[in-house]
C-alpha cells in the first residue's frame, strides 16, 4: 500500500475522531454556558425576591450568555490544530503509545525514510482497526442535569407569590430606601409646615423646612442632606428653650416671694399651676380692688411687691420694673398710678404667656422633626453609614441637653450608644422633663479597644513590642545587624564551604542537632544562584 493511501486512511480516521471530539466539546461548553446563564438568572430571581434592587431583564442575560457562548466557540476553533488533537485523543483512548500522533506528525512534515514509512504503515493499519464511535462516544455531560435542576428552581421561584422584597428595609441600600420613602418624607414635612399653630413656629426653622421640602419634591436632595436639613430645623425650633426655662425659673422665684400673701393668693396659685392667663386675671382683680384694702394691707402689699421686684431675673425685667413702680405707687398711696403699674405687670405676664405658648409649639414641632429623623435612621442591623448618621444625630441631641443644663448628665452616656439613641425619646428638648427617655448605658471601652486606639495613634505600649517572640534566625542575625562586619566575606566563604562539606559528608551529626546545624548553615550561606 502506498504512503499516500496510508496517509489518507489515517487522516480519514482522525477526521471522524475530531468530529466526535468537537461534538463532545461543544456539548461540554454548552452545558457550562447553560449552567452559568441559569445560575445567573436564579441568583437574580432570588435577589429580587429578597431585596429591592434593579436587575437587568432575564432576556438580556440569556442573550448575552448566548452571544458569549457563540463567540467562545468561534474563538476555540480559530487556530485549533484539530487533527493533531484528534491524534492525541486516539493515542490516549486506545493506548497506542503515541503511534498515531508520531505518524501524523511525520506525515505533515513530509519526511520520508524506510523507518518513517514503516511507522506510517503500521499507524495506518492501527487506524483502520480503530472505531471512532467506540473510542470517542458522544456523551451528554452530567452538567445538563445541574442545568435542569436550576431550571426547575427558576420555575418554582416564578410560582412563589411576592408582595415585594422580603428584606426590603433590612437589605435595601440607603439610596433605594430613600427613593421609595421620598414622598412619605415630603408629606410629613408638609404636615409640619401647614399644621395647627403654624404661625407660632420659628421662622428660621420654617424656612429650612420649606427649602428641604422644595428640594425633596424636585428630587434634588439626598438621604444625608435631608437628615442634615431636619437636624438644623430641629435646632432652630429649640432655640428658645433656654430662655423659656429661665422664664419659668424666674416665675417660680416670684411665686416663692409672693407665697404667704393673702391678697396675692389667687395670683400665686395660678402662677404655681403655670396658668398665666388666670394669673393675669387675678392680678387685674387685685388692681381693681386696691381701694378696698386697708392701710395696713396696702403697706404689706407694697412691701411684698418691692421685695419681689428686687430678684435678679433679667428675663422678666420688664415685669419686675412694673412691679417696682406699683410698689412705689402703693407705698405713696397713689392708687391710680399703682393700678396703671399693675396693668403693665399684667401685660408683661401676658407677653410671657405668649412666648411660652410659642416655644411649646416649637418644641412640639421639634419632636415631630426628631421623630422623622428617627424613622429615617431606624433600621435593624443598619449599615455603618446609617449608624454613623444616627450617632451624630444623638450627639447633637446630647449637646442640646447639656446646653439646657437640666438634662441628666448620664443621658449623654446613654446616647453614646448609637443603637439605643433611636429609642431614647425626645430627651433633646430642654424642657427639663425628666421623663424625656429611658437611660441606657453604652458599651464600655475594653482594654483591647483602648490598646487598638493607642496603636492607631502611634503610641503602642512598649510591652506589646517586647512580648513579640523573636524568630531564632532573627536572634542569630540580630548581632550582625547591630554592628558592621569586620571580617571580609572572602575570608569566611572558603572555611564555610569546607565546614559545610565536612559536616555533610564526613561528620556524623546526631539527629536532634541536624535541624540546628542546618539552620546555622542556612543563615550563613551565600546566595547560591549568584
Amino acid at each position, binding site marked *: 500500500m502506498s504512503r499516500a493511501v496510508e496517509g489518507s486512511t489515517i487522516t480519514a480516521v482522525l477526521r471522524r475522531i475530531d468530529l466526535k471530539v468537537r461534538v463532545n466539546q461543544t456539548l461540554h461548553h454548552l452545558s457550562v454556558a447553560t449552567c452559568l446563564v441559569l445560575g445567573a438568572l436564579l441568583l437574580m430571581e432570588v435577589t429580587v425576591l429578597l431585596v429591592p434592587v434593579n436587575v437587568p431583564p432575564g432576556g438580556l442575560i440569556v442573550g448575552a450568555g448566548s452571544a458569549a457562548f457563540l463567540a467562545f466557540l468561534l474563538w476555540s476553533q480559530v487556530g485549533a*490544530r484539530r487533527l493533531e488533537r484528534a*491524534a492525541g485523543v486516539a493515542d490516549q483512548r486506545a493506548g497506542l503509545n503515541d503511534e498515531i*500522533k508520531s505518524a501524523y506528525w511525520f506525515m505533515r512534515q513530509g519526511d520520508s525514510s524506510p523507518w518513517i514509512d514503516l*511507522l506510517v504503515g503500521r499507524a495506518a493499519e492501527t487506524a483502520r482497526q480503530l472505531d471512532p464511535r467506540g473510542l470517542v462516544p458522544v456523551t451528554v455531560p452530567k452538567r445538563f442535569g445541574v442545568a435542569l435542576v436550576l431550571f426547575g428552581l427558576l420555575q418554582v421561584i416564578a410560582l412563589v407569590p411576592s408582595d415585594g422584597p422580603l428584606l426590603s428595609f433590612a437589605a435595601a441600600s440607603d439610596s433605594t430606601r430613600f427613593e421609595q420613602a421620598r414622598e412619605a418624607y415630603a408629606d410629613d414635612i408638609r404636615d409640619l409646615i401647614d399644621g395647627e399653630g403654624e404661625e407660632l413656629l420659628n421662622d428660621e426653622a420654617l424656612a429650612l423646612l420649606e427649602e428641604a421640602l422644595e428640594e425633596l419634591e424636585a428630587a434634588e436632595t439626598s438621604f444625608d442632606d435631608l437628615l442634615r436639613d431636619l437636624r438644623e430645623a430641629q435646632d432652630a425650633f429649640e432655640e428658645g428653650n433656654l430662655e423659656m426655662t429661665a422664664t419659668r425659673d424666674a416665675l417660680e422665684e416670684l411665686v416663692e416671694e409672693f407665697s404667704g400673701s393673702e391678697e396675692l393668693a389667687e395670683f400665686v396659685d395660678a402662677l404655681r399651676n403655670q396658668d398665666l392667663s388666670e394669673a393675669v386675671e387675678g392680678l387685674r382683680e387685685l388692681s381693681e380692688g386696691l381701694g378696698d384694702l386697708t392701710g395696713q394691707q396696702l403697706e404689706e402689699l407694697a412691701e411684698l411687691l418691692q421685695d419681689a421686684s428686687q430678684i435678679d431675673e433679667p428675663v422678666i425685667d420688664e415685669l419686675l420694673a412694673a412691679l417696682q413702680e406699683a410698689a412705689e405707687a402703693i407705698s405713696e398711696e397713689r392708687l391710680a398710678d399703682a393700678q396703671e403699674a399693675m396693668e403693665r405687670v399684667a401685660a408683661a405676664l401676658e407677653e410671657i404667656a405668649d412666648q411660652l405658648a410659642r416655644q411649646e409649639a416649637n418644641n412640639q414641632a421639634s419632636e415631630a422633626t426628631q421623630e422623622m429623623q428617627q424613622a429615617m435612621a431606624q433600621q435593624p442591623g443598619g449599615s455603618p453609614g446609617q449608624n454613623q448618621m444616627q450617632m451624630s444625630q444623638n450627639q447633637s441631641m446630647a449637646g442640646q441637653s447639656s446646653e439646657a443644663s437640666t438634662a441628666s448628665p448620664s443621658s449623654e452616656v446613654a446616647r453614646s450608644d448609637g443603637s439605643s439613641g433611636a429609642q431614647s425619646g425626645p430627651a433633646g428638648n430642654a424642657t427639663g422633663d425628666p421623663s424625656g427617655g429611658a437611660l441606657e448605658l453604652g458599651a464600655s471601652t475594653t482594654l483591647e479597644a483602648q490598646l487598638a486606639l493607642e496603636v492607631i495613634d502611634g503610641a503602642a505600649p512598649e510591652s506589646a513590642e517586647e512580648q513579640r517572640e523573636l524568630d531564632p534566625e532573627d536572634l542569630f542575625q540580630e548581632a550582625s545587624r547591630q554592628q558592621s562586619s569586620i571580617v571580609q566575606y572572602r575570608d569566611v566563604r572558603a572555611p564555610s564551604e569546607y565546614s559545610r562539606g565536612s559536616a555533610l559528608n564526613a561528620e556524623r551529626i546526631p539527629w536532634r542537632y541536624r535541624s540546628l546545624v*542546618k539552620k546555622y548553615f542556612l543563615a550563613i550561606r551565600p546566595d547560591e*544562584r549568584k
Partner: protein
Amino acid sequence: MTTTQIDTQVSDFTEQFQRVKDEISRVIVGNEEIIDGTLISLLAKGHVLLEGIPGIGKTKIVATVADVLHLKFSRIQFTPDLMPGDIVGSDVVHESDTGEKHLAFQEGPIFTNILLADEINRATPKTQSALLEAMQERSVTVGTTTHRLSPPFFVLATQNPLEMEGTYPLPEAQLDRFFYKLKIQYPEADHMHEIMDRTTRREEPEAGMVLDRDEILVMRDTARSVPIARAVQDYAIRLTLATHPDTPHAHPLTQRYARFGASPRGTQTLVIGGKVNALLNGRVHVSCEDIRAFMLPALRHRVLLNFEGEAERVETDTILEAIMKDTPEPSE
C-alpha cells in the same frame, strides 16, 4: 533498505535482546531493571555507573554481561595508588631480536570492549580523569600518539555508597558522562532463596555466549535509526528543563532543592534510551512512555542538590518522580 527489512531488523533486535537477557538471568537472580539498563546503555553507546552496597552482585552482573556478549573484558580494581598509566598503558623500552632498543606502547587494561572499573571512587581524581576521558573520546593519548579504542567500548563502573572515607567522589562533570546510574537494591527474600540455590551447589550456572561484536554494532545502528516525533522530543526536553531551578518549566521541588539540572546530554540519554526501549517493545517510534521508562537512571546523577536538599537528605529520585508525575504529556 525496505520497510520489510526494517521490520525484520526490529524483530531481530527484540529477539536478540531477549536472548541476552535470558542468558544473563540464568546466572543473575532478579535485578531485571539493572540488566535492562546495562544492555540499553551498551546499545546506546553509553556507560553505566553501578551503585550498591558490597556483596549484592555488582561485579557478578558485569562479568556475566561480558560472558554473554562474547566481548573482550577487563577489570580494574581502583585504589588510591592506581596511576593513569596503569589504566591506559605506557611506552616501554623494547629490545628487538637484533638488539635494537625502541619505545613501544604497552596497552593498558582500558584496551578492551567491556571494562569493569570497580570502586571507581577509590582512585585519585587524576586517575579517574584518565578513564573518563577515554569514555568520552573513545581514544587514549599517550605522549603524542592517540590510540583508538576498539568498538564497542563499554565501561561499567561501580561505587559503594557506604564507605565514603578515603574516597574521591566523582565530580559532577564526570558523573554526566555516565549514560545511566543504576542503583542495585538488596535482593528480596524470594530472590535470596534462588541465589542460595544457585550458588551453593557443586556446579554454579554459567552463561553462554549469545551475541558477538558485529551483532552488537548492528543493534547499535538500529537503535539510533528509530524516528521520534517532535511532540515526544518536546516532552523529553520539558522533563529535562523541569530539573533546572531557574527555568520557567522548573518544578516546585526543583526550585526548592536543586542547584543545577540535567545537561542536554541528559536529554540525549532520555531520547536514545527511549529509542532502544521502543524497539524492545516492538515499536518503530518513540513514545512518551519510552521517555519515562528510564528517566530515573538517566537523570538521577545529573541533578545536583543545593544545600537545603542535601541537608534534608532529599533523593534526586524523589524530585524526578514528582517531575514525571506533574509534567503533562503532549496532547497533540
